[in-house]
């Protein structure tokens, strides 16, 4: 991943704007179930409410996802983090960073906010245990100064959860 994404917060390109407006309309017509997005003026940052799926460890819990779009979205992946408090999950760090391949190396421009949300909910739902990643403290310490998760070189080792 390039370092061009989050901190500098370049304005969206024309193409990114058009695409996001399309996604916004589609979301309003057909939102993914379990998610609520309160539309604001800010097209570049979406804050989305996630409801844990019934029958899972996260049932009846609500969390907030913050999605920031880079200048060249959808070529570049959006930055997706949980706002505190982040859910306890083996792939979610206490600073809200999510270890999920499609947000980084495996991003494809054919993915949408909606499909990303569904992947995250699915990741939550399949967790057998509520706990932090083993290296949580070390990682979070290294991420001081609001470093973007997109600058982490992630190592996706677990395909079960």
């Amino acid at each position: 991943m390039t370092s061009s994404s989050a901190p500098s917060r370049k304005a969206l390109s024309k193409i990114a704007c058009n695409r996001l407006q399309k996604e916004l309309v589609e979301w309003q017509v057909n939102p993914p179930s379990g998610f609520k997005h309160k539309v604001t003026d800010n097209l570049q940052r979406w804050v989305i409410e996630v409801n844990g799926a019934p029958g899972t460890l996260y049932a009846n819990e609500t969390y907030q996802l913050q999605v920031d779009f880079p200048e060249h979205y959808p070529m570049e992946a959006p930055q997706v983090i949980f706002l505190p408090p982040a859910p306890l999950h083996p792939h979610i760090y206490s600073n809200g960073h999510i270890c999920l391949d499609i947000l980084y190396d495996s991003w494809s421009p054919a993915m949408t906010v909606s499909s990303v949300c569904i992947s995250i909910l699915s990741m939550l739902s399949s967790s057998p245990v509520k706990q932090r990643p083993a290296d949580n403290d070390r990682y979070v310490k290294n991420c001081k100064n609001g470093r973007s998760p997109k600058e982490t070189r992630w190592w996706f080792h677990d395909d079960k959860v």
Partner: protein
Amino acid sequence: MAEEEVVIEVDAVQAVYGDDCLVLQSYPPHIQIHIKPRTAEISSQQFVEAVIGIRAGPQYPEEAPDINIAESKGLDEQRKNHLITGIQDKACELSSCLMLVALCEEAVEMLSSMNHPEGNCPLCLYPLVEEDAGRDSLPFMKLMSCFHCFHCECIIRWWNWLQSEKEVIPTNLSGPSVRGSRSMLNQRSVHAAAEESTGSCPVCRKVFHAKDIEHVLDLVGAHSQLSSGDAKLNEDENLTELDSEKFRREKFEAILKLQQENSGLIEPRKNEVLLPGMFLPPPIPETTTVSVNETTDPQNTESNVRAGANSSGSSNRPRTSEHRNSGMRKHRGRNPRKQVKQWTKKETGNAD
């Protein structure tokens, strides 16, 4: 009706459809037919195809056979249902006659009427084909391996982005001067696009070849930069001789083999392979012809492509692609290119 008559009918179906017909059982008949829309064999004009299963019971033909779709390309759920219902209706209509060939023909007819891409471009989310005929639609193209369609402009933009990413990543680690150099790298990246040769479909990640999108490259004025590929080619050859590279390839071969053994790979069907040397087993003359057709056809038929594309494309192509074929064959196995790229990064990265 007598069993022999039904068996004879199945033979007839097989005679009509040849390799496109797979007889799973001759009595009671259970067959699979690979159907394509009528496009006079012009593959670039083909946007849908399907493998239809027809399974009859012992009461056939008094009782209509079951129809299902085993595989399809370019058809969403709605259109698949439409296709199945249509064939079922035909089956009811023909009840108590031997109907297998008639059902297959009905399927071909229906598929021909559905032979257009549907929905939005997965990259910009705007319709591929504008409903309103008065407005100008953007030209679109399809990937030959999976039939996913995109606006030409969108797929090229993504392709160029991908190539520039490939160039940027190694330097990115060393310093902040990356952004400035990107525009300069863009020229090389288009060039690299021709050499690097594979990408994966944004929708299904099926690997495709640079040639697949070459015919639309010149739409963005990049085509001229594709010539003179020799210097880069030498670089590639040097790279393949490095021990570390050999070792890396062996490792990926092993991983790939493991995946194959565990049925973890979805591989393209052999007769749909587009380009010589991509996944082909030792060349069979028939498939070679097919692939040549497929690569040149889009240029002839897509109205947006300048007429020059064909000739300029072929004049500098054969040499480089021949070279690459011999090189590619060695590591043909590790086709999911994207994955390879990831793996490299994982190895160098620290385990966070």
